């Protein structure tokens, strides 16, 4: 039997959630509405700032000419490849650094400096060395994502509860056993968090790379739009990016829930 107090409580939580969702949707609707209104009333320059309907039509046109999906597919493919590689690199190197503490201390300042260095500055170098192609884009994304990943996972590994490690030592566990039985499982949620950071970093890296070299992809679309001064295209590109971000965010939360079960 559920008590009235509990019913009230559950109802209140539900109502609160609904209010938040409605407000969230209202903000975007309001934003789009005002934007459309201002452009219809000619209060903003639609040549520069476009309008929701124009953006919508541009996206439909892109979809009809099949271009949209090519661009999307290219960008997604690059994100996926760099995401997977970035995590593997980040995870493996952090594990190695954990096993070899002195090496980790030696490399520490280099990693920190590499992390603060704006990776876009390395763009020209990457392009010259590996060519104006997809490889450069992925290297760019990896530079951004894997270094943060190494730093994050390594910090988490180092903060593992000493008593747990001590316990394993009383069982005569090897370093590798300590890594797999304590250090990795103790930092499960930090590892998942670093995956989350990683996907946004790959996103940044891929779009940056596409700005610099590509002939395809959403980043290219935006860059091309700005070169031919087609602001509809630029803003549509940004919109597509926003939708991609939402998609990736939903995917990650879904996977996170799956993993944490």
């Amino acid at each position: 039997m559920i008590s009235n107090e509990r019913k009230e409580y559950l109802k209140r939580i539900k109502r609160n959630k609904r209010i938040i969702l409605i407000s969230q949707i209202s903000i975007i609707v309001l934003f789009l509405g005002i934007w459309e209104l201002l452009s219809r009333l000619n209060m903003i320059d639609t040549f520069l700032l476009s309008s929701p309907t124009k953006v919508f039509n541009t996206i439909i046109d892109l979809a009809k000419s099949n271009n949209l999906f090519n661009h999307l597919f290219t960008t997604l493919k690059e994100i996926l490849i760099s995401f997977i590689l970035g995590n593997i690199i980040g995870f493996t190197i952090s594990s190695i650094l954990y096993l070899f503490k002195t090496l980790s201390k030696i490399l520490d300042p280099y990693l920190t400096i590499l992390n603060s260095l704006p990776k876009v500055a390395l763009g020209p170098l990457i392009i010259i060395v590996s060519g104006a192609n997809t490889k450069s884009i992925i290297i760019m994304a990896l530079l951004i994502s894997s270094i943060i990943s190494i730093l994050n996972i390594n910090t988490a590994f180092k903060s593992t509860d000493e008593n747990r490690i001590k316990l394993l030592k009383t069982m005569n566990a090897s370093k590798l056993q300590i890594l797999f039985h304590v250090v990795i499982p103790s930092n499960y949620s930090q590892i998942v968090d670093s995956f989350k950071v990683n996907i946004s970093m790959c996103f940044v890296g891929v779009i940056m790379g596409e700005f610099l070299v590509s002939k395809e992809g959403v980043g290219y679309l935006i860059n091309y739009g700005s070169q031919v001064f087609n602001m509809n295209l630029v803003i549509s590109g940004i919109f597509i990016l926003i939708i991609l971000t939402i998609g990736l965010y939903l995917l990650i939360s879904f996977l996170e829930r799956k993993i944490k079960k």
Partner: protein
Amino acid sequence: MNNILEIKNLYKNYQTIDEEVKVLDNINIKVNKGDFLGIVGPSGAGKSTLLSIISGLEKPSSGYIVKDDDITFAYMLQTDTLMPYLTILDNCLLGLKINKKYSKEKELEVIKLLTKYGLKDYINKYPSDLSGGQKQRASLIRALCLSPDILLLDEPFSALDYQNRLNISNDIKDILKKENKSMIIVTHDLSEAISLCSKVIVLSNKPSKIKSIYRIDLDQDKDPINNRMSDEFMKYYKMIWRDLNDK
């Protein structure tokens, strides 16, 4: 005598950036097969340190631990260390898995012990679902199921209620006696040390020396509560109590 472990002229200093902390000062102990050794002493004396050195976790500054290579230890640490991401059963099986001694029969044995110590309903639960005392019982089972030659216990019952404390300590005594295993237990509870152990070692303040060693000779067949009520028992209690408080 069946001497299985000998601590000889043991000194231990901890080195930190700021200072050198002298903890153990010329400790000499002999452990025979089947011995139950109690270690009592003021807080900070170095009791946990001593167990860590015996188990090989810490290195002595000088002196030796003499033992056969095939002597095995299981060490229940002073701080609770159940892995929060493992079920109680998996926690208890952890040592067996690490030492590649896991088998289905061993698992059944562990389940039997868990059941005996009132943790049957928690076998597939996680440590966060357990009370402090329940966690301690689980940690104890984890150490016990490794069937070590020497069981090292650091304040193993501190979170248990009095009744559980008596029963479980008595059980462990029986289990180890049956298998002719040895135990070294650090405890703040004098009664516990006297009723469980065949020898009680009193350590002084840090840097600790051995103040005295008491050989306990009580009628072992009595049940634990009767044991603790006897005149003999009280005699030991008063003696060790005075010794502990004597500066």
